C-alpha cells in the first residue's frame, strides 16, 4: 500500500493530467516538486485553487492536482485573478504559476500590486529567460548580453524578480532551480504556510529555446553557477516527532500556523533571512559575480494579509448565508429618510 500523508491521502491524490510540454522541460520537474510539497504539507486538494496566466509554465496547473479547481486565465493577469479568488474565499490555499514573460513583462504591474496587497498565496515564477510558448523570444529576465540559439543578443538589463519582490515589501522571497527537489520542495512547503504572498523565482530552463551555454538560464549554466544559501526543511505542525538535525548550524523560523522552517547554512556568508537589506545586497553581489543565488532570501511574518488589511470577516465570503449578505428592508426604509 502506498504511503499516506497525515490527512490520509496517497501521493496519487496530488497527480494531474499528462503534460504536453517538451520532454525534459524544467517546468515538468517543478510539477513533480509541487505534488511532493503539497502531499507532504498535508493540504487537501479540495481546498486548493490553482491559478495561472498564459505560457508553457501557465499550462502546468493542468498537470498537477486534478482534484483541485484550476484557472488558466489570461497572459499576465495572475495577480488580479488571485486577488479576487482570495477575496471571495479566504480559506482556499492558492497556488499561482506564472512565467517570466507572464510576470516580468505584461504582468509586471499586477505582480507588483499583488505583493503590495499581500494576498496569501504561493507564487511560482518559472523563469527561463524566454517566451517559451511563442517560440523563444527574450523575456525581461534574460540577462543583458545573453545570446539566443538564433544568435540574437539581448541588449537590455535583466529584471531580477526577487529583488523586485523584496523592494515591493514581499514577506517571503526565495529563488530555486527546477532540478533541485531537495531545495525546492521545502521552499514550497514553507511558502504554503506563509500568511501572505510567498514568491519563489524558479530557474527552469527552456530546453527547446534557451538551453545552451551562453544562457544563464540553461541547465549547464545553473549547475556551474548555483550557490546555495542554506539547506532547508519544514516541520509540519502536525508532526509531533522533531526531525533529527545538527544543532548549532540551524536557524528556525516560525510560521504563523505553528509550522517551522529550518535552515541549515551551507554558505560561509551568514545570511539573516529577516534582514531584507542583506538579501538585497546578496542579490546585487551575486548578479555582479554571475552567480545564481538560491535559497530562502527573506521572510517576514509581520505583514498583514489582504483580508486583515481590509478587515474582512473570517468566514469566506462565498460561504456567508443570505442574511449576512443582504441587509433587511427595514434598514433600507430607514436609510431612505436621508434622501427625502
Amino acid at each position, binding site marked *: 500500500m502506498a504511503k499516506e500523508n497525515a490527512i490520509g491521502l496517497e501521493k496519487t491524490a496530488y497527480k494531474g493530467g499528462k503534460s504536453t510540454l517538451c520532454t525534459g522541460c524544467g517546468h515538468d520537474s517543478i510539477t513533480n516538486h509541487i505534488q511532493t510539497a503539497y502531499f507532504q504539507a498535508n493540504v487537501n486538494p479540495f481546498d486548493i485553487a490553482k491559478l495561472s496566466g498564459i505560457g508553457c509554465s501557465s499550462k502546468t496547473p493542468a498537470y498537477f492536482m486534478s482534484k483541485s479547481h484550476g484557472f488558466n486565465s489570461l497572459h499576465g*493577469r495572475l495577480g488580479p485573478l488571485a486577488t479576487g479568488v482570495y477575496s471571495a*474565499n479566504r480559506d482556499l490555499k492558492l497556488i499561482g504559476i506564472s512565467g517570466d514573460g507572464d510576470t516580468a513583462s505584461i504582468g509586471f504591474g499586477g505582480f507588483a500590486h499583488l505583493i503590495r496587497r499581500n494576498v496569501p498565496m504561493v507564487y511560482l515564477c518559472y523563469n527561463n529567460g524566454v517566451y517559451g510558448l511563442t517560440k523563444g523570444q527574450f523575456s525581461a529576465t534574460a540577462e543583458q548580453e545573453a545570446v539566443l540559439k538564433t544568435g540574437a543578443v539581448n541588449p537590455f538589463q535583466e529584471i531580477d524578480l526577487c529583488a523586485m519582490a523584496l523592494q515591493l515589501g514581499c514577506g517571503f522571497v526565495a529563488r530555486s532551480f527546477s532540478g533541485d527537489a531537495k531545495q525546492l520542495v521545502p521552499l514550497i512547503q514553507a511558502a504554503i504556510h506563509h500568511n501572505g504572498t510567498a514568491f519563489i523565482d524558479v530557474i527552469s530552463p527552456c530546453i527547446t529555446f534557451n538551453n545552451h551555454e551562453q544562457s544563464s538560464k540553461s541547465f549547464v549554466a545553473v549547475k556551474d553557477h548555483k550557490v546555495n544559501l542554506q539547506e532547508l526543511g519544514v516541520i509540519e505542525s502536525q508532526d509531533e516527532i522533531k526531525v533529527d538535525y545538527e544543532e548549532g548550524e540551524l536557524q528556525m523560523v516560525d510560521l504563523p500556523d505553528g509550522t517551522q522552517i529550518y535552515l541549515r547554512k551551507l554558505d560561509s556568508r551568514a545570511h539573516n533571512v529577516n534582514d531584507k537589506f542583506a538579501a538585497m545586497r546578496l542579490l546585487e553581489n551575486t548578479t555582479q559575480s554571475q552567480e545564481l543565488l538560491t535559497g530562502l532570501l527573506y521572510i517576514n511574518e509581520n505583514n498583514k494579509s489582504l483580508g486583515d488589511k481590509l478587515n474582512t470577516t473570517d468566514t469566506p465570503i462565498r460561504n456567508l448565508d443570505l442574511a*449576512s449578505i443582504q441587509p433587511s428592508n427595514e434598514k433600507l426604509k430607514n436609510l431612505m429618510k436621508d434622501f427625502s
Partner: protein
Amino acid sequence: MEKLTNKANIRIGTVNGTGSQSSNTIIIKSLFRMGVPVSGKNLFPSNIFGLPTWFQIRANESGYTSFSDEVDIVVAMNKDSISQDVDSLKAGGLFIYNSDLRFDEILLNDEHVHFAVPFKNLVKGVTDSIKLRKLLTNMVYVGVLARITGMDKEVIFSVVEDFFKSKKSVVELNQQAIEVGFKYAEENFNKDFYIQFEKRSPLADTVLIDGNTAGALGAVWGGCGFASWYPITPSSSLMEEFENYANQFLLDEKGKKNFAVVQAEDELSSIGMVIGASWAGARAMTATSGPGMSLMSEFVGLSYFAEVPSVTWDIQRTGPSTGLPTRTQQGDLRIAHTMGHGDGKHPVLLPASPEECFYFGKLALDVAEQMQCFVAVLSDLDIGMNLWMTKDLSSIDLGPIQRGKVLSAEDLKQMESFARYKDVDGDGVPYRTLPGTHDDKAAFFTRGTGHDESSKYTESSEKYEELMLRLKRKEKQSLEVLPKPVEKKSDQNASLGIIAYGSTDQAIDESLSILAQTACFADYLRVRALPFHHEVGVFLAEHDEVIVIDQNRDAQMKDFLVIEYPQFAGKIKSVLSFDGLPVRAKQIAEKISEVL
C-alpha cells in the same frame, strides 16, 4: 408675464471647488419637500478648482424634470461665466447676481429682471471667519432665492438641520446666512414675482437620489460580496457609495466586513479581480467609464468564453478616448454589447432612472450568475451623478437573490458525473462548482482556450463549433432573465413608434407631449436590455415608421436594431443628439418632426 407656479428652471453659476454644492442641495431638497417635482443637474468641468460650474434645478409640477436649456432664473456667482449666464436666461427671466463681482454692467440684458446682491457685505454679518465666509456666501443666495420665489423658510430650515445633522452650531450658522439673504431680498426687492413656489402635499413614496448611489444600494441589498474598481469620473461615486453603505450595513457580529472592496491598480485588474472573485463564489462587480471599458475588453472575452460571471457598471461619459470626462453620452452601447475580440455578445442593462439603477444593481449580479456571463450595466453621467426623483427604493421588490446553477458537494454526491460545460438542461446554461467544494467530482480546469464539455483542452473543430453554438443559445436564453422593454402607448392608435433607452426617457416623455400638441402621436418603447426581447420585434412590426433615439453620433442602438431586424430596416429612422449634454425635450421633439 403669465404666472408660473411650481414651474421654473433655475441655473446657479458658481466657481468649481467653492462649496456651492451644499447650498444647491438645500435648495433642491427644500423644493422637493415642498411637494414640487424637481431634478438637479450638475454641469461641471473636468478639473478640481477655479473653473465655471453650474447647477440647474428644474422644478415642474407636471412632473417634467428632464434637463432643459430654457432657463427661468439665474443665480450668477461667477464673474467668468457672467455673459454665458446672461445668454442662458430667457427674456423676462430673473437674474440674481453678486454685485461684488465687478463685471461690466453692459453685459446684462435689459429684458431680464435684475437682483443685485452685495454678498460680501451680507456675509460679513454672519461670521468673522474668512474661511467660513466663502461657504456661507452660498447660503446667502439660498435665502435670496427663497424669498424672491416664495419658498417656504420653515422647510428650508428643516432641510438645513437634516443636512448638517448633529452639528448644531453649523446648522445655526447656515440658517443665519440664509436668513440674512432672505431679509436682504425682503427689504430690497419687490415680492410676488411671476415665478412662485407653493407648498403642496408631500411627494409620497418618493426620494431624491443620484443613480450611482441608488446603484450602490442595489448592490448592497443585492448581495454583492466583492467589488473592485479603479477611480474614474463619473463612476467613482458608485463604488465609494457602495463601500460607504456596505461599511454600514454589511458587517458581521465582530464588526468585520462581510464584503471586500479593493481599489485596483487599473481596470484590467479590477475586472480580473471580479472574475476571480465570481469564479470563487462571491457576487462581484466593478464600475468604470469608457476608457476602463476599453481596457476590460480582454477579460470580458474570457468571461464570455469560460463562462465566469462578471458585472461592470459603465457610467458613460462623452467619448471617444478621454473625451469630455464630465459630459454625458450613450456612446458605449456598442462596446458594452460586443466587447472583446472574436465572436460573442453580452447582455446589457439600460437603466433609465436611479430606481432602475437600484433594481439593476441586484439584477445584474443575478443575470451574471444565472447565465454565467459578463453583464454590462450602462448608466451615464446624467443618471449617475445628477439628482433624480425616484420611487422610494425600499418599496421596490428586488426579489430573491438568484445564484444560478451552482452545485454543492451534497448535490454532487447525488450525481453520477459532472461535466462543467455540459448542457444538461438544454437551455445552453451548464452547471458549475466552486473551488473549495469537497467532492471528487467537483474540480474542473477553467480556461480561455478551446475546451470540451469536461473543460479539457481541445482543438477539435467539432467541439469548438458545438461550444460556440451553445454560447449563442445561451445569449438567447438570457432573455428569460433580462428585463423586457416598457411600452407607453399613445391613446391615439399611433402608427409612429419611438424606440429609446436609458437616461433620455424623461425628455422623450416630455417631447411626446410636445408633439401631441401638434397632433403628432407616437407609441414609445423603452428598451431596457440587450439582446432584444420578442416585444421589440412586435413593436417594429406594428408601426409604420419607427424612430430610434440615440445619444451618440453613430446611432449605435439603431444599428443593433437593423442587424436584429433586417426585415424592418426600411422603416427605422434615427434621431441623434450627442453634444455632451442631457437631451432636451424640445430638441428631441424638433428632431423627430424633422425626420418625419
